[in-house]
């Protein structure tokens, strides 16, 4: 299968050096809509959807492959090699921070800089480590996701994918940025919130920047500092932006922090 179609890869921008933006759990590449265009004058900008999200090819969703973050990292490596990426800047939001790290360990030549927005190496508390969540709370989340299907309907899903220009589908496009097959959403939530990549952090040798929001309940300051302290030579910037999605709530601050680093 064509990797670029599978992951709904979109290229834009005029620069030579590539910058790859990866979305986290919840929505799709639209999460970068206020950030990515700011890099088009200096970079080749690459956006994509993880398989299962947004405009990706749902038929490529393989339960076993995507039951670990490795499956997602393999996709990222494939996208990189398909596009011939070398020394690119990787910007990952939330769980994609870890996916980017895993990809960089699999293919060291791929990325020259990592920017991790709201990263967490483990969400569930473990002994002295504070991830912010108990295992029971994550189990509740998985159940709760079933209460919010966001108007997902298996019958209409294929029609809206790749047809945003069709006005008669506009009504159905409501929520489409974050609408996912409930089974896939649940599986992605499970792999995200039960992941533990603390052991991978020390292996990172690429220059890494961590962007830490204030009052982020998903990836708290302690969690961000843990990532910073575990990745040798990494830098951390504390954003004024609150919440878990500064790429939407405070794009200007995110853009300038990334530009200052790369």
């Amino acid at each position, binding site marked *: 299968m064509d990797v670029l179609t599978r992951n709904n890869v979109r290229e834009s921008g005029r620069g030579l050096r590539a910058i790859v933006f990866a979305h*986290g*759990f*919840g*929505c799709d590449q*639209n*999460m970068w*809509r206020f950030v990515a265009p700011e890099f088009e004058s200096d970079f080749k900008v690459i956006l994509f959807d993880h398989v299962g999200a947004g405009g990706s090819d749902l038929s490529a969703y393989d339960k076993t492959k995507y039951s670990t973050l490795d499956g997602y990292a393999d996709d990222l490596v494939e996208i990189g090699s398909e596009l011939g990426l070398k020394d690119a800047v990787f910007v990952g939001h*939330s769980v994609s921070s870890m996916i980017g790290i895993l990809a960089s360990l699999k293919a060291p030549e791929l990325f020259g800089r990592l920017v991790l927005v709201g990263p967490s190496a483990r969400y569930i508390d473990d002994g002295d480590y504070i991830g912010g*969540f108990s295992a029971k*709370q994550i189990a*509740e*989340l998985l*159940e*709760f*996701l*079933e*209460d*919010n299907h*966001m*108007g997902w309907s298996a019958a209409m899903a294929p029609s809206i994918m790749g047809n945003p220009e069709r006005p008669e589908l506009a009504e159905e496009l*409501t*929520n489409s*940025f*974050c609408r996912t097959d409930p089974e896939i959403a649940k599986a992605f939530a499970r792999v995200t*919130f039960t992941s533990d990549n603390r052991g991978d952090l020390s292996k990172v040798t690429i220059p890494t920047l961590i962007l830490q929001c204030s*009052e*982020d*309940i*998903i990836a708290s300051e302690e969690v961000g500092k843990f990532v910073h302290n575990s990745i040798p030579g990494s830098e951390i910037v504390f954003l004024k932006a*609150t*919440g*878990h*999605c500064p790429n*939407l*709530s405070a794009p200007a601050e995110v853009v300038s922090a990334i530009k200052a680093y790369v």
Partner: protein
Amino acid sequence: MSELGPIDEYQDLFENAPCGYLTIGPDGRISKVNATLEAWTGFSADKLIGQRLHQFLNMAGRIYFETHIAPLLRMQGFFNEFALDFETAAGQRLPVIANAAERRNSDGTVLFTALVLIKATDRRRYERELINSRSELRKGLAIERETAELREQFIAVLGHDLRNPLAAISAGARILQRSGTLQDDKELRVLDMMNTTVTRMSGLIDNILDFARGRLGDGITLSRDANRPLQPVLEQVVDELRTASPDRSIETSFAIMEPVNCDRSRVGQLASNLIGNALTHGAAYQAVRVGAKTEDGVFELWVANAGEPIPAIAMGKLFEPFFRGDIRSSRQGLGLGLHIASQIAQAHGGRIDVTSTPDETRFVFRMPLQSN
């Protein structure tokens, strides 16, 4: 008319509406709540205002708000019909369905985000029951499928294992026949009967195996060969059945003038099943007639018998597995013969049609001479 003035009426509608109202300021903190929400949550306005909404949600709701609701509000300006669970002052769960919309200035900056909350305890319980029953059904279905598959594998293994002892009986009968030690008429009749039974049983086993194979996903596989003649195969099938039913008459008229691109042994099996069916269900005192011809690019094989017509209600089910007509003869099979015959026909791009009148019951198999 109401005793309240127009402004008070609006105020009252806001405060005591049968839904909760809540606004979030541009700083992400709750800026206004109505009396209904205060009553539902058990938190007074001064406890709510200035706090972040997620502080009053359960953990799952918090994560969902951050990962879905907040991004969607920012991207599309509204988000309708989402489920949230509040945690009340008394520690109870308060399930709500919410709509949210951003109010923006003319320059695009967010003034506030308004949320309308509808209590949804019963609705959510109902939905959860639906989800639970669906997952129960799925579990049940998975178990059923597994059992069915096991059963079919068992059938396949059983059919396979029955072949060896049958081959031994068949070999034993042949040895007896060749040795010439049996002279007595009665003894020879017993030997004939053994041969008949072996033929019939090996036909049954073939059908069982084909059925199991079909159910296990392999389907009927063909090895077509248009270069070798079909007629001798059909003649052999008829001979075997004549031997097996010495007291019955089978009349044939074959006119296969062109090559038939078919799996010859499969078509032989089809013919054997159709003729076997006619012998079982047809009138004992009249001949079973079998014909085959090639004409207009089509190969046609027909088998006809006299006797009681097939009841109308049975017609639609004839080719279903394990279907058996009324028990008229002790020689009832498994009910797989016609099913397998129709599967073989389909595998050849052909079909079997049936007509049944008081005069005659006729099965006709037609397939294209050349496969596409």
